[in-house]
């Protein structure tokens, strides 16, 4: 490897943060003091390169200890991992939660995304700005000095839309801490910025249906103690894995196939087919990834399962691994979920202690391990191939397909990637059988489905209904529009979804139902906007979101998301270029280019919500032409 190291030297604290994660250096060639042996030999090569996947966790370690990643720290990490500093810089700057410019140890991230801004998030940001100055972007931005203790920043969706407005406090130091909380008041936010602790004691999981005997996926959430393996077992836990061992891998895949379960992450790919494809690959090893990166604005269902029923994630991953021949599973968890991380870590440890993970799961001779890998604030890393690059220690840029993940995924090996909700459904399939499961819902959409209700709704939270319920059913279940206001629009499926009108509420929320209506279920987002909402503002926020989150790898998306946002700004300002019709035609052309030519789903859907706002809501019907 050609290492052109920088002159900058890491501080003792920075070295310690890296060493605490990677272990101490072994020679003068990897960052330690020169030893006599170093004069005549050095090892590296494949062994050193195989450590590349430790890059992102190591960057997390520096960020968590120091609060930012200095040139010295970066240089030391380059020496330790034999990765060029420029390469590491490319990775570090890819992620929003990592900083290569000085930051104070404490940062308060305030959500100003679509779920929160209408619920006081934008007002909160403005109030904080008034009181302590603009959001911090680094010493080169509006701030010429680095706040001593705490900085505040605006953030995209934090996945706490049921407690809007949401905030995330990260605290770097020898004992780093992070806390996601909401709803946050201006007074609370200012107290935190002044150095106070994050307010505690809120209910974190909102399951308005809790206790309903009809619940299948959520039946344990807010019922069992999420820290207790015994409690999990007392409520049906690990019966699924037992059954899997009894019937064997092929039969498990058969049950899943017969259930007609389709992926819940957004793409709705038949899960059984995916599993069979991975299981059938002769190349070893196989890897399993639980996609727990849920970052679609308005989505928080997976967080609720991870925090409220973490053992269900572990058990269902173990089943998936058993069925498809994986010995190593990864949970790719978004970096904004510290509580979910704590719960999952605890569950993994407890499962390992009880022989439910490790070299001999349940005494059946099956080896399976799970490791959590944390994202660091990059929406794109929810894309399955971007996860591979992120875990491997590269910029989280999606890969071209083919090869498909089942052929060559993580570390180039056959890989199964499933969303949290998808995996948890497998427990239900093994409990009642694939055929019985397939009888739930409709012909084309089987099983129960989680929906995230947020925005202007009376009782926000995660709801579980069998497929077939209409949009109106869900809105009614959640108590209707907040304060009984008239409904202006519903955003279905998140930022990558579509807006629908109040007169479309009888749309059945099935894959086939929304497809017929030209909509999407996406990740199950149902965000309500009442008559007071400024929808143009929401659309602009969505456009800004995609511009910010585009990884920049492919041109249609990198350029298109910028041009789309610019066009919307012109429309908002009444300065449509060439007149309204021409500007809308341009917007459409940009959107189609992104849809047709982008590598991954981000670019392909970046125009969807905008398009629906224009065509379904007629957002610009009364606009001035400029």
């Amino acid at each position, binding site marked *: *490897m*050609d290492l052109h190291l920088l002159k900058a030297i890491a501080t003792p604290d920075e070295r310690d943060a890296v060493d605490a994660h990677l272990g101490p250096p072994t020679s003068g060639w990897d960052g330690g003091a*020169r030893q006599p042996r170093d004069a*005549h030999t*050095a090892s590296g*090569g494949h062994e050193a390169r195989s450590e590349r996947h430790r890059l992102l966790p190591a960057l997390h370690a520096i960020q968590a200890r120091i609060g930012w990643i200095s040139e010295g720290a970066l240089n030391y990490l380059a020496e330790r991992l034999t990765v060029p500093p420029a390469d590491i810089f490319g990775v570090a700057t890819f992620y929003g939660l990592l900083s290569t410019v000085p930051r104070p140890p404490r940062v308060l991230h305030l959500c100003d995304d679509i779920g929160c801004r209408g619920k006081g998030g934008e007002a909160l940001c403005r109030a904080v700005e008034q009181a302590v100055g603009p959001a911090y972007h680094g010493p080169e931005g509006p701030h010429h000095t680095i706040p001593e203790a705490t900085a505040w920043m605006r953030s995209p969706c934090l996945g706490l839309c049921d407690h809007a407005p949401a905030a995330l406090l990260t605290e770097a130091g020898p004992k780093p801490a992070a806390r996601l909380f909401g709803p946050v008041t201006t007074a609370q936010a200012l107290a935190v910025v002044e150095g106070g602790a994050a307010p505690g004691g809120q209910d974190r999981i909102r399951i308005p249906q809790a206790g309903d005997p009809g619940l299948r996926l959520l039946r344990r959430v807010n019922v069992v103690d999420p820290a207790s393996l015994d409690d999990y077992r007392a409520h049906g836990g690990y019966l699924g894995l037992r059954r899997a061992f009894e019937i064997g891998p092929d039969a498990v895949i058969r049950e899943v196939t017969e259930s007609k379960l389709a992926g819940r992450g957004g793409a709705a790919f038949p899960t059984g087919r995916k599993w069979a494809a991975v299981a059938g690959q002769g190349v070893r090893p196989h890897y399993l990834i639980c996609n727990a990166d849920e970052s679609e604005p308005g989505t928080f269902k997976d967080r609720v399962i991870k925090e409220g029923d973490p053992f269900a994630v572990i058990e269902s991953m173990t089943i998936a691994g058993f069925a498809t021949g994986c010995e190593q599973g990864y949970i790719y968890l978004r970096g904004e979920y510290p509580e979910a991380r704590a719960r999952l870590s605890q569950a993994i440890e407890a499962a390992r202690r009880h022989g439910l993970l490790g070299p001999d799961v349940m005494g059946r001779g099956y080896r399976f391990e799970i490791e959590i890998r944390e994202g660091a604030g990059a929406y794109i890393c929810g894309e399955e191939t971007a996860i591979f690059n992120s875990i491997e220690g590269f910029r989280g840029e999606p890969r071209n397909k083919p090869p498909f993940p089942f052929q060559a995924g993580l570390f180039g090996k056959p890989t199964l990637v499933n969303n949290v909700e998808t995996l948890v459904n497998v427990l239900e399939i093994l409990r009642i059988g694939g055929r019985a499961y397939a009888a739930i819902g409709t012909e084309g959409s089987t099983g129960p489905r989680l929906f995230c209700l947020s925005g202007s709704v009376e009782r926000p939270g995660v709801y579980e209904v069998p497929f077939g319920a209409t949009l109106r059913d869900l809105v009614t279940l959640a108590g209707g529009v907040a304060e009984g206001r008239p409904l202006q629009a519903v955003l279905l499926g998140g930022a990558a979804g579509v807006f629908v009108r109040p007169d479309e509420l009888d749309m059945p929320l099935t894959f086939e139902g929304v497809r017929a209506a030209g909509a999407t279920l996406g990740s199950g987002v149902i965000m309500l906007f009442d008559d007071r909402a400024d929808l143009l503002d929401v659309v602009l926020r969505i456009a800004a979101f995609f511009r910010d989150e585009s990884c920049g790898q492919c041109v249609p998306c990198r350029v298109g998301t910028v041009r789309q946002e610019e066009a919307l700004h012109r429309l908002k300002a009444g300065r449509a270029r060439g007149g309204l019709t021409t500007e809308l035609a341009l917007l459409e052309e940009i959107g189609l280019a992104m849809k047709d030519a982008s590598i991954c789903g981000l670019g392909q859907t970046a125009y969807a919500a905008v398009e629906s706002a224009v065509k379904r809501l007629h957002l610009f019907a009364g606009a001035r032409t400029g």
Partner: protein
Amino acid sequence: MFGAGGGTNTYREVEETDVVFLWGANARENHPIFFHHVLKAVRRGAALFVVDPRRTTSAQWADAWLGLHVGTDIALANAMAREIIHQGLANEAFIRRATEHFEAYRVSVETYTLAYAESVTGVPADVIRRAAETYARADRAVICWTLGITEHHNAVDNVLALINLALLTGHVGTHGSGVNPLRGQNNVQGGGDMGAIPNRLAGFQDWTKDPAVKAKFDRAWGIDMAPTYGKNLTQMFEAMEHGELRAVYAIGENPAQSEADQHRTERLLTGLDHLVVQDIFLTKTAEFAHVVLPASSSWCESEGTVTNSERRVQRVRKALEPPGNARDDQWIISEIARRMGHDWGHPTGEAVWNEVRSLAPMLAGMSYERLEREGGLHWPCYDESHPGETFLHSRLWKEPREGPAAPFSVVEHDPPVEMPDAEYPFQLTTGRRLDSYNTGVQTAGYASPLRRGESVDLSPEDAIRLGVADGAPVRVTSRRGAVVAPARIDTSLRAGLVFMTFHYQDEVKTNVLTIDATDPKSGTAEFKACAVRLEPMTG
């Protein structure tokens, strides 16, 4: 090897091998194109071992770097051999069928224990063992070397030590296994192919040993060739020293700056009765010449062929007319012949090539038409229907073996002629950097962002001991001369070892320091090792 002067494998095979040894070769910087083939192998999973006194940029890519002391390659190779034999990893079937003199070799390496080798080379015993095991156990393995092996007073012995390892393990004569000297220019191999060496004619044919060869060439050229070898470059300078050689015709060579002990070289060149230099630049040597013949650039102003390190003969086409009065080399040579009374006319490149084909069986099948159609061919290629051979010596794997047995050679460790002592406590080794080529004739004319100018590179430990800061001027003195160059602190060096290039001969004449200790068998000087003293310049 074993009679034919060329590497045994193609680049493609290097990509498809399992273990690569770069031995005395910093290919990352000096053979960057070849290194890309190595990297393809590495990315496919091949192990890379680099043997070099410095931890070069090539070594940084390696699974293991064996940082031996300069000039201890034979000790290392023999210790690896002993370890391979003792572990029962020698390829006995191959040894029995294809080689001879194994017993003498086995006895000779017995004294090279790991402990002894560690004491001589500095390389930890466990690393030597790992290298031996990895090489011997590999299904396919190649050893590649360059000047780190050959710029020594015992260059041929060094090469033989490496060939011994290949014979011991049977890593020669199959796809992806072999021994390969890397060539420093696009057509170094081609020069040898054409007979531009003092002891072989075109196609590596020895007219002094084989009467049929002599008869063939005598008949073709209408002469009676004397059955004696010519002189190699080192012998030529010795002959100049003794007054036997009074006139020199140098074509595309700049010995004034590329030879060791530069003061002596200059003295001998300026003392000649007649010096003719034919080159595309006015080199330092040309400045001493009585006649300078401006030649054409062979890669764009001339028709012909080149042969690369993988023995692939390729066509070169003329794209430009030479500038000014510059002439094609073939034209110049033909004109000189004519004026000396031999009118060859002015044959085309193809006509010359066809004559070579008619006399050198290994090139016979390579018509211009085929070379163009097939994108080049690997020699040997005996007739128009022969596809050319990717790897050499497959005969060694025929049962029974075809042709003569490949001999093991007993070679013993012999340290560099000039070792550091109290007066000259540092060992100077020389080499090349990525951005420059040899004396800079071909590279100094353009700018490179990588080029830093000459420096004396030394270890951080020595810099501290001498009180030298990075960039501070240092006087480097050997028994033969002294130069001044800025210091560059380089962690790739260990205490006691310093490194310089000879890219900037006009500014820093590194070769006034180097020693003219040459290998009697190859004529190569020991550029890789001499003893020097370092003194920080004050004020």
